[in-house]
Structure formats: C-alpha cells, structure tokens
C-alpha cells in the first residue's frame, strides 16, 4: 500500500482540480454568472476572461466553475440514492439466496436495468418537468440496480465463508451479519463502482441538460452550455470547447481514479499481482 498506482494519482489530480473549482465557486468566482452583458459577448480568452465570454457576455471560466458544482452535486446525490437503496436490496437478496425473495428483488432490478437509462431519464423529466431535482431522481433510479447487483454478487461469495457460518452458529440474525460482516467486506467493490457511477452520473447530467431537461437557467450547467453554443460553433468555437473539455477531463479523471482504486482495493487483482 505504500505506493499508489499512477492512474489513481493522475485521475485524482484531474478530478481534484474540478472539485476544488466547484468548492471555491461557493465563495468566489471571477465574475457573477447571473449578470449578462450583451455588449461584451463572444470575447476570446484573455487575462480579463480566462476562457472568454459566451453569447450573453458571461465569463465562461466562472460558468465552468459553477457548472462543476452542478455536475458534481447531481452526480453525488444520484450515486448516493443508488447506494442507499441498491446496497440494502442487494444484501437482502443475498441473505435470502435460494428463496423466492432473492429472485423477486433481482428480477425487479433486471427490469429497471433493461431500460435504456438515458431514455427513461428523459421520460421522467419530461413527465414531471425539467429541474435539477428530477434529473437527480432520474439518474439516481438507474444507479439502484447497479449497486444491488454488485453487493449481492459480493455478498454471496462471503456468505459461504467459515466466519459467517460461525456468526450464524453464534445466533446472529441475517440483518446483523449483513451489516457487521458482509458490508465491510464488499466496501471495496462499492467504492470502485461508486467512482465509475459517479463519472456516468456527470455524463448523464450533461446529457439531460443538453436536451434542456436538467437544471434550468440561469444556473450554469456544462451540458446546457454545450447546447447553447451549438449553433454558434462556427463564430465562437470557444463557447463549446471549454465545457466540452470540462466534461471530458472530469470523466477521464474519475475513470482513471476508478481504475487505480480497483488496482489497490480489489482482492482478486491484488492476489494475482503478488
């Protein structure tokens, strides 16, 4: 454990930059993103506006910072929903392995999993109205089966181990065994999966905002910045480039982090490396 894989370090740095930007944006941004200055629109990057200005004369650098906040907040809560509901479901299913309840829970999960997630997210936001809240719910729902499967799979292999048998012999109920013995042992899996789901959450938020179903203006969002700049790409390409790179780099950073974390945490990989 003394040295971290390079992917983890590189990915961690990339993601930290955006996380830091998002956190700083709570107290400071170079310019107010809610004040429009039409006369100062389409300015190219300069010392006054590091990333230039958009079609309303807003500072793109500030918008990327606040947009990072939007993306990360939506993804964190959406992954949180997935973990909070998916993990207990998975553990419950594993504890009832062989029972009809296991089948019932997992087939229910398969049902949700079978739908193309983004299409259903669009459906949800289209029916309940576009807002950050509905975007979070929509993305969150599709994280549930992912975490349920992962935790059930992990839990099943642990249920067969001797120390679980002794815990059962000692009279512990399935609920306590799941919470005290199984959950800590599948935490690695969940962390790795969580990182990957987090990057997918950021992509999904950008996609929903791109089609106009995510957070509503004036709150900046990378996806909507892309959509707004679409028809202006020939006159002011920097409007699309910066949010585009922000999405790419954040997702790349998170995926590299996920890879790195798996290298450290996944017991199977650790074993083969030795």
């Amino acid at each position, binding site marked *: 454990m003394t040295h971290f894989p390079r992917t983890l370090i590189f990915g961690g740095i990339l993601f930290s930059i955006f996380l830091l930007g998002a956190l700083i944006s709570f107290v400071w941004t170079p310019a107010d993103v809610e004040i*429009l200055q039409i006369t100062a629109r389409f300015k190219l990057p300069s010392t006054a506006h590091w990333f230039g200005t958009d*079609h309303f004369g807003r500072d793109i650098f500030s918008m990327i910072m606040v947009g990072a906040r939007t993306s990360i907040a939506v993804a964190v809560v959406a992954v949180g929903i997935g973990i909070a509901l998916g993990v207990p479901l998975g553990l419950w299913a594993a504890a009832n392995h062989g029972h009809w309840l296991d089948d019932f829970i997992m087939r229910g999960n398969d049902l949700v999993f079978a739908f193309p997630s983004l299409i259903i997210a669009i459906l949800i936001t289209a029916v309940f*109205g576009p807002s950050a809240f509905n975007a979070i719910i929509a993305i969150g729902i599709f994280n549930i089966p992912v975490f349920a499967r992962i935790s059930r799979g992990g839990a099943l292999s642990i249920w067969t181990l001797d120390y679980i048998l002794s815990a059962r012999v000692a009279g512990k109920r399935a609920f306590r065994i799941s919470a005290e013995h199984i959950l800590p042992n599948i935490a690695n899996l969940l962390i790795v999966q969580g990182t990957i789901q987090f990057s997918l959450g950021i992509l999904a938020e950008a996609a929903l905002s791109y089609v106009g179903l995510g957070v*509503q203006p*004036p709150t900046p969002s990378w996806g909507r910045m892309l959509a707004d700049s679409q028809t202006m790409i020939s006159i002011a390409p920097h409007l699309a480039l910066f949010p585009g790179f922000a999405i790419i780099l954040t997702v790349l950073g998170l995926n590299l982090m996920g890879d790195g974390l798996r290298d450290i945490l996944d017991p199977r990989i650790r074993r083969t490396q030795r």
Partner: protein
Amino acid sequence: MNFFVKKVATATAILLSSTIISHAAQTDITIGMQLEPPNLDPTGGAAGAIDQVVYANIFEGLTRYQADGSIAPALAKSWNISDDGLSYTFHLHEGVKFHDGSSMDAEDVKFSLDRARAEDSTNAQKALFAGIASVDVIDATTVKITLSSPNGGFITNMAWGDAVIVAPESIGNAATNPIGTGPFVFSNWVQGDRIEISRNDNYWGNPVALDSATFKFISDPTAAFAAMMAGDLDAFPGYPAPETLPQFAADPRFTVIGGNTEGETILSTNNKDEHFSKLKVRKALAHAINRQEIIDGAMFGYGKPIGTHFAPHHPDYIDLTGNSNYDPELSKKLLSEAGYPNGFETTLKLPPPSYARRGGEIIAAQLRAVGIKAEISNLEWADWLKQVFKGKDYGLTIVSHTEPMDIGIYARPTYYFQYDNPDFQQLMTDLTAESDPSSRSAMLKKAQRIISEDYVNGYLFQLARTSVINSKIKGMWENSPTQATDLTGVSWTD
C-alpha cells in the same frame, strides 16, 4: 510521373467543364424549410407549412397577395361590386386548365367556395367565407357572389391560401397529390425529406423562369446553417439561426434579408396573477425591461422595438415605446409603492423558439436587477399550450403573436393573459361595426394606447423574418404578408 500529369489534366478538364456549365443560368432551386407540411391540401389544414409550399405555386385563388402585401387579380381578371356592396361579379381568365388537363371554370369556383363554407367544411379559416349568402354561375367565366352584409375585406379574404380554387375531381387526393391551376406542378414528396415541384408548361399566365424547385425540410438550426454554407440550399426563408446571420451577411455568396412579419413578440403577463393584477407592478415590469438588449442578445439585432400590440409597418401603428422606456430606478420605485420593496418571486415559462429561450434568460437577469425573481422553466410546445395557454398557470411567458391584426385578442377576458377591460371590449365591438376608414384608424390608435398604458403585457419587439438567399437569386419575397414561398417571380441572374 506520367500518371500524375494525366491526373492533373483530367482534373483541369473537369474543372473547366464545370465552370462552363455554371455559366449557363441555373433553372432549379432548392429551398430550406424548418417545418414539413402535414399534408398538401390548403383548404383542409391549418398548418402554415402547407401554404409555404403550395400558395401561388400550385394553387391559385380568385385574387392573390403580392410581395408588398397588396392584393392583385389572379384567376379572376377583373370584378364589379354592386353599389350596395353586397354582390361581387368576378370575370375569370379564359382557357385556364388544372394540372390534370380539366378546365377551370365558374363551376369550379362555385364548388370551391360552397365547399369551404359548408356546414361540414374542414377549412381552417371558415370565417373568411361566413359572409357569403350565395354563389351563382352566370356563364363559364362569370361568377356572382352575394354577401349577407357588406364586407370591405372580401377581396382580401379571397386572396388567402385557404380560399384557393380546386376541382371536385381531384380535391379528394389533394393531401398527397395536389392539383391546382398554378405555374408549378407537384411532382414528388419524399416524406421527412423533401417536396419537388416542376414547371407547368400549360400555364395560363406568364411562364415562370424556374424549371423545378425542391423544398427541403431541415428543422435543426445547426444543420440549416451547414446546408446553406455548403451550397446544398439556395435559399432559406425564415432562417432559424439568427446568431449565424453576421457570417452570411459578410459572405458575398449570400444575401441576408431582414423582412418584417406580423409577429408581435411580447412578455405575456398573467393579469389575474396575485402580483401582476396590480397596474403598478405591471408598469414596474415594463420599465425593468431593456428591449434593445433583448433584440441584440436574443435576435442578434434583428427586430424592431414595439410599445404596444401592433405591427410597426402597419399605417395605423403609433410608436408607444416611450411608455415603457428602460428605467430600472423607476421600476424599483414603483415596486416599493406597490408594496414590494424587496421584489417578489414568479415563474417565467418559456416555449422552444430561440427568441423565447434566449430572450427569457436576458429578461430574467433584467428582472433580477430590480428585485423580481423569475424562475425559468423551459417547456416543449405541448406543455406550454397545456400549462400556459390553456391552463393559465403562469406568471410570465414570452411568445410571438404572428396572426395579422390581432389586437382583438385583448377584448377576450378568457384569453390566456386574462385582460378584462370593458372599455376596450366596447371599443373592439364598435370597431367591427365601423366602416369609415378614418374613424377606424382613430379607433385602432386608441386601442393601441389603452393596452400600452394599462401595461397589459411587456411589449418587446416585432419578430423579423430573416431569410438567407444565394446572391444570384432575384425575386424572393422580403416580407411575409401571408404564409407563402412565392416562386413565380424568382430567377437566377446568371
């Protein structure tokens, strides 16, 4: 090496030959349209896209609109009006044939008008024909129309795309195979892609310069830009991406036309809303808006500021923008007087067009500056119609009212902005009964003043109809007095 020389020679030859070909004047044209018509029967559908293909090209009426909005004879070469203004005798052109070879005569006129005004008619503009008492055939080229009461606008009514003359034998299939009397014949419709028309060699009137025309449907503004730039399209009337217009304007290959439309773009205000029912609040709203910033920011400079619900190119228009000049300090003062020193929260529900979406962001920022927090929600048309137009569940919205002369909507208390002023309603009733032009003009001016001084809605700008066309094309309409892409006068200069 030899091979290379050969290649260069071939390439040069191809280049040369293509230059030679391009010197002959082009006789076909490809026109971009954002919306595809649902069918091609102008007498049975309301969609404006139908007339944008067929009006004056495939179908003709007794009279027709010209590019400047005036009315000219079409299938009727002349007409007499009786002294009491009740009967119109139309004299038709002789030898007019439908595209299927059958002749167009007074019987077809009677059929078309009787069909349009029938009880079970599906005509989208039945009101145009409501005053007709009877249609009588005098002889093959003379038809007499009797009205139940005098109507100064009857000749104009007959110029509408909904009043075109059709034949009983072919009208049944007009939705997919329109057969009219016009200078172009329908030839092909590839659903979702394009409609092709070609010259009618047996046309009764002046022959057109073009051999064929293609209407290509491109809904995405980015794709429209690319297709125009690549030369796949020769013209795009009502071009959907104003942000790219400066680029076309700077390019000698293209001409940008900024014509006017009948579209008053307004910040519609729910007059029954708890905040906006107060006149002071509506006045504060009007003074918080910087129109020029909206025109520049949302429409890239295309659009004329308006201060009331009336088209600036109309002779009776009066400029009332001074009633609602941009004055945020006055706006704040009015808000405190109305009991909102710290402003209030409301909703701003926006339909899809870019004037609304972009304009909405700008207006929300302008309102924030005086303390009104307008929460934006971007809606699709169906949701907008349900929530705002029918449900009246909104504070503010932005929409362009594109119907001509539609100030009468302010006399409808149940209309979505819910303005209820008995004086105004009386004025509109009087206007309908009045026939003297100068009194009518005075009444229309008074009506404009009432709604402007009542600050019923935020009056923003007259929607421009910007068209991008190839510089070598002559004869396209600049303005849009009616929904049409009239190709009869269009030609290539070389």
